[in-house]
């Protein structure tokens, strides 16, 4: 209980504290310390949950599935804070952001982490909605932080599209509450409690639940970045500050997908005895596969480095959505593992990209050249990161993609073909862009910058470890989450 409060409310306190703090130098360090405190709380909470099972109470509930994302969120929050402290100072010295903007950045960074952790630990589906909408509100001013016309345009698009999308999710939540009123004894007290609903899910009216799920999927799917609701994502990622791109890709998309998975669990249980028991899974498979293929094609011939990697995020979110849609223990385990390794790898890549754009002072791919000669650490970081994200062995993404492909082979053999083609196309798009950036001739007058590669090394080493030998503890942990989602153990 104390662990939970420490994890979730440290960022809230941090948001208020950093909003009031004037010194930018102290703010960077304080931001880092708060993230470390929150991560300590998250690890404590995880130990608690793994030892004694789900921690539940009045309108919150932390089980194996949510605590794994809580730890991931706190970890990526910390590593990105390590990167952002010197990076935002540099941006400030470049006069791209004012002192007030820097204060807003630090305060809203913590605010964003608070909404993410709240969404993961709450049991109330209404609060879940409020938290995910709150994440949009916290990040939207950060996307326009540089105040360029393109940044304002991107932020407006982000605000409007996510606002419209998330409104559909609220309609879905209302419909769900409506179904709950006829199944629960005391709906006013716990009608939106996920665990109470899950307990009576077989009695929820299937037709109403199908309508609710479609709205919830479209709504939260907008934030996952599923095609065709994805168009805000590349804009917001490319125009916002780089630490923001790292946490958006690594955390926000995961948490939105987490919401979809929770809704799928309810819908599956409610529809089990109806005419269309797999409706939710089929919808997820369809949206996931289309997103994956469209993003793989969009990866070709990009000119902006951050846009390139944001399309790669859509591609991977599509894969995970597809995995959860296929269902069954193997595919679900693969999707959960993929969530973990993708978040670690992608935020490491965005941190490296931040250093790379700092070195060459542009985001245009054709002007970023010769990173490995100018600064080997950044060049190697980008190369290894891209090798990992493209699914090369021995990295963790290879493992999860391999498991996902085997699961697809078992359940839907002919769908393996588009998956393989998509992976190859995505790989080609990524490497054609990255190879000259890393190995090309460095333009004259390009100097190394002060880069802290510690977060990148840490995260890529973790991904490597997960690929070579999945630690028993973590495998057991993911297996518990799989059991929670599918009702069966994989291991």
């Amino acid at each position, binding site marked *: 209980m104390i662990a939970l409060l420490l994890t979730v409310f440290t960022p809230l306190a941090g948001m208020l504290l950093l909003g009031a703090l004037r010194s930018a130098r102290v703010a960077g360090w304080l931001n880092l310390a708060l993230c470390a405190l929150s991560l300590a709380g998250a690890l404590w909470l995880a130990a608690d949950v793994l030892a004694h099972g789900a921690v539940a109470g009045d*309108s919150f509930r932390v089980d194996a599935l949510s605590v794994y994302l809580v730890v991931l969120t706190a970890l990526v929050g910390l590593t990105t804070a390590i990167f952002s402290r010197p990076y935002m100072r540099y941006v400030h010295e470049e006069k791209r952001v004012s002192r007030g903007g820097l204060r807003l950045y630090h305060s809203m960074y913590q605010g964003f982490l608070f909404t993410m952790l709240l969404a993961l630990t709450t049991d*109330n589906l*209404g*609060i879940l*909605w*409020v938290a995910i*909408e*709150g994440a949009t*509100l916290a990040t*939207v*001013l950060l996307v*326009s932080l540089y*105040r*360029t*016309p*393109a940044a*304002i*345009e*991107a*932020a*407006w698009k982000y*605000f*409007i599209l996510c*606002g*419209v999308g998330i*409104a*559909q999710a*609220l*309609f879905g*939540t*209302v*419909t769900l*509450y*409506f179904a709950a*009123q*006829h199944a629960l004894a005391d*709906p*006013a007290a716990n*009608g*939106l409690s996920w665990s109470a609903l899950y307990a009576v899910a077989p009695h929820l*009216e299937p*037709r*109403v639940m*199908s*309508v609710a799920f479609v709205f919830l999927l479209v709504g939260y799917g907008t934030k996952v970045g599923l095609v065709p609701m994805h168009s805000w994502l590349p*804009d917001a990622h490319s125009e916002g500050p780089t630490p923001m791109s790292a946490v958006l890709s690594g955390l926000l998309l995961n948490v939105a997908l987490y919401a979809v998975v929770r809704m799928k669990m309810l819908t599956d249980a409610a529809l089990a005895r109806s005419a269309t028991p797999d409706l939710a899974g089929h919808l997820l498979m369809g949206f996931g596969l289309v997103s994956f293929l469209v993003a793989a094609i969009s990866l070709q*011939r*990009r*000119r*902006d480095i951050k*846009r390139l990697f944001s399309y790669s995020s859509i591609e991977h979110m599509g894969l995970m959505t597809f995995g959860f849609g296929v269902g069954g223990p193997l595919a679900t385990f693969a999707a959960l593992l993929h969530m973990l390794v993708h978040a670690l790898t992608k935020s490491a890549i965005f941190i490296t990209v931040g250093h790379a754009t700092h070195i060459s002072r542009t985001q245009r791919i*054709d002007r970023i050249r010769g990173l490995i000669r100018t600064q080997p650490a950044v060049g190697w970081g980008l190369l290894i990161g891209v090798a990992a994200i493209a699914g090369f062995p021995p990295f963790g993404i290879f493992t999860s993609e391999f498991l996902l492909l085997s699961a697809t082979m078992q359940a839907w053999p002919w769908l393996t073909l588009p998956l393989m083609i998509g992976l190859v196309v995505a790989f080609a798009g990524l490497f054609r862009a990255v190879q000259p950036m890393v190995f090309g001739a460095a333009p004259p007058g390009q100097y190394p910058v002060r880069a802290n590669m510690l977060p990148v090394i840490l995260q890529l080493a973790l991904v490597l470890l997960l690929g070579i030998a999945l630690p028993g503890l973590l495998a057991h942990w993911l297996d518990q989450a799989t059991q929670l989602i599918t009702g069966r153990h994989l291991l």
Partner: protein
Amino acid sequence: MPLLDQAVLVLAAMALFTAFALLAQTRLTAAINTFAWQGALVAAVAALTGRASGDAHLYVSALITLTLKVALIPWMLHRLVRRLSLERQADPLQHPALTLLAGAGIVVFSDWVAAPVAHFDASATRNVIAISLAIVLLGMLMMVVRRQAVAQVLGFMAMENGLFLAAVASTHGMPLVVELGVAFDVLVAMVLFGVFFLQIKNSIDSLDIDRLSQLAEPVEDDERGDAP
């Protein structure tokens, strides 16, 4: 059908009418007033439902809506419009007849989507759920067809009205803590919209969203151009 239910239906239908009025209204000041009326109608539905069902917390919801959607947000929008001197600006629709026809199509579609609920629950709520979904989707349509930032925000807020109506009519309101959270989000969103208006105005000296997207288009074209 009890008198209160009939009153709820009439008020909900009037809220749907204001959604159409918002869609067709070209003058910003008048559109903001129409939006305030819609908020008042939705708040009245909440209060009446509260009276019919005896749920005290619905009165609280009605009061929150009244302060937020009828007083505070229209006041903030009027102030912004004055500050950006947009009072006399008209924002004509490209194809008014087509837009209104699409709106009518949306109402029919909403009725079809709400049909499963009708099989499930024979009370008057079915029609109100269809109406509230129609208001949500009409707000979305408004955000698509209007090119003016303030009008888009009105569409956004009208969607929130529709969602609130759905919650009140189908389930006698969400739990109070959720409603407070939603109201807080709406309020913060409104403040942020205000900040954005100023940022957009400063950067392109207009609140026409079309011009905003034209500014970004060179970036997009650049994207699709031939790689070296």
